[in-house]
């Protein structure tokens, strides 16, 4: 069996999307979406961080250069940061970083940042579905020569 169907219905192969999420809000929002059984595309893999302000833009650059098809950062709504002002720093850094992506040869649409609170399960579902759709419309990212393939993993999962 091949890993081919995303739950959004489109029978496109899964792409690599990395999420960096704030533990206090968006990670909880993703949990809330799970508890509410809000079905989402399965492409996203979430990495938990203490704050969106912990996101070093180099994490995103590294993910994109290593073959991620999309990167999503999500934190608390501005003014609602668990650490008072972490997401303000995140917002400024990530916006500048997004402007820089074309210089790296990466389509800036492959990276988005957003704000989702722990109570907003439905909003999280919408964010994931929309971003996944956007990445699928862009298609797989250009792989750097020599980047590893993931076939063995797909095989091992049957």
């Amino acid at each position, binding site marked *: *069996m091949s890993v081919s*169907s995303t739950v959004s219905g489109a029978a496109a192969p899964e792409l690599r999307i990395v999420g960096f999420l704030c*533990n206090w809000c968006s990670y909880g929002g993703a949990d809330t979406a799970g*508890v509410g059984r809000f079905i989402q595309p399965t492409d996203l893999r979430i990495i938990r961080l*203490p704050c969106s*302000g912990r996101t070093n833009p180099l994490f995103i650059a590294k993910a994109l250069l*290593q073959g991620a098809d999309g990167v999503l950062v999500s934190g608390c709504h501005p003014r609602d940061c668990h*650490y008072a002002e972490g997401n303000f720093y995140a917002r400024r850094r990530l916006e500048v970083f997004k402007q820089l992506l074309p210089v790296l040869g990466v389509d800036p649409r492959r990276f988005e940042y957003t704000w989702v609170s722990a109570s907003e399960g439905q909003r999280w579902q919408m964010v994931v579905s929309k971003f996944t759709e956007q990445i699928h419309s862009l298609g797989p990212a250009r792989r750097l020569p020599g980047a590893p393939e993931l076939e063995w993993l797909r095989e091992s999962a049957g």
Partner: protein
Amino acid sequence: MKIGVFICHCGSNIAATVDVKKVAETAGRMAEVVYATDAMYACSEPGQQAIEEAVKKYALSGVVVASCSPRMHEATFRRTVERAGLNRYMFEMANIREHVSWIGRDQGPNTVKAIELVRMAVEKLRLNRALIPRKLPATRRALVIGGGVAGIQASLDCAEAGLEVVLVEREPSIGGKMSKLDKTFPTVDCSSCILGPRMVDVAQHERITLYAYSEIESVSGYVGNFEVVIRKKAAYVDWDKCTGCGLCIEKCPSKKNFDRFNEGLGSAAAINIPFPQAIPKKAVIRAEDCRQFQGKKCGICAKFCPTGAINHEQQDELVTIQVGAIVAATGYDLADWTVYGEYGAGRYADVITSLQYERMLSASGPFGGHIKRPSNGEEPKSVVFIQCVASRDPSIGRPYCSGFCCMYTAKQAIMTRDHIPDSQSYVFYMDIRSPGKGYDEFTRRAQEEYGAQYVRGRVSQVYPRGNKLVVRGADTLLGSQVEVEADLVVLAVGGEGSREAAGLAEKLRISYDSFGFFLEGHPKLKPVETNTAGVFLAGSCQGLKDIPFSVSQGSAAAAKTLALLSRDMLESDPQTAQVDIKRCIGCGKCIQVCPFQAIREADLRGQSKAEVLEAVCQGCGLCNATCPQGAIQLSHFTDNQVLAEVEALLCP
């Protein structure tokens, strides 16, 4: 490193859409994994025991559990590995329930995703280090924000147990919404007779300091050691001198002002004491209503005050206090019902809210406890109650049931017949929701003993005819249109989070939802905790509830506060930033971004270096993302650990 991996079935919650055995089998081939297995319920007693035994049997030095969200059970499993003799930070969790099995239906992609999440957890764990929490002293004092019935209960319980309590109330008197009520369901107890003595207890308790007419200006610090600035709003009356005699109110020439306490029924003087049982019973001048502040010659209150308490020059005062824990009990506000054009949207004087009706029924209210039509002062003979106003109505963004309206409407229908024996009440309802001790019996009494006529259906229009109001609606049980001629229409308006809740949530660093309710730590298991350590919730600020539930939650929040502060020393979270002094160039960027002033400049043999105050560091990692040298690293979330997760996913 020897790693053990445990994949949880969670009954069928995970196993139904993830091939758990396959995940365990694949995990067994991952780097440094010496043992991998699946478990029916990893969090159950046998599940935890199996982890402990495996740690010992295979001499594991780290454990990965793939199950639910770490926000749910990370603390549980950390204790498990600690019991088995490991440091509790030698543990990682892969969230394969909320983030995998519950959001995807296909087993194929779900299983691949679960394997990858486990691999990421394993790769992160390989870089984990043992962390040792530090002990730090806690201030044995609690702050309670909001002096409604929930806040009063929390304050009294804490104070009775020996804790010092600071109670902050934004209004001139404590008592909250309950102090506005005439009677309470389902016993028809007099509200002020139950609440009044509790309010007096608060005022007289030696361990409770009350700041009425005050607001929270700012909150800093962390669990055990919060620093809170309270803004004492200028009352323009020296409360130390004011005796609450009320002479100023009598003499004040500006009497036709909006009466906040009475919900706009009647009017209030510019200098006022909201109600006779007010605690503290002190006068407050509303500057916007006062002639003196409008540049007119007045000052009559100052002339008559027997103690010389009036001070038009008074300024807001800021008070700083130290507390170890905070209970938020800020209650609710009525939702805006004037969006309903069909009910007159506030145009008809005889269409009032249920809270206004309470003030009408109250003997100390503006009408002296007599039910009168606001338009002409006559006694109404036909009273129509409309339920679910701004409740259960997604069209105005209020999809939830407010929970208490069915009950207070039944009470008000009973009180109407009590006050005016020849009156007839009609209740338009959607469903009668009365789950509570003695509640359903009570709504039946309203119908059977007090003759209230319940009509199941919505009201489409309220319009005037002569000096009466016509209420037109549907009776869905009869399948027909009904028209009732009413002298008075009472809208059972639902509630929403207090209007200032969002601002307070930002200061307390807690979450709130789109209706202004604060978010609890867990909907089932942590109903009064928040995700911010040391901040607890009580009463309707967390979600609408009636008096018995608010009181229960007040006591529950007090119990949590007491448990937290029962120790003199708290354990600090060791997930703090660490400086590698060899790499630090002393640029000071980390000092600039730290929201907690947890980093300072230190001198090391003539060189400037950053130094982290571990007790103050909250572990946000802002400094880590800022440091151009990568010299400052957040323990447990270092650059290398995060990148290990990225690499585990993209280049396994």
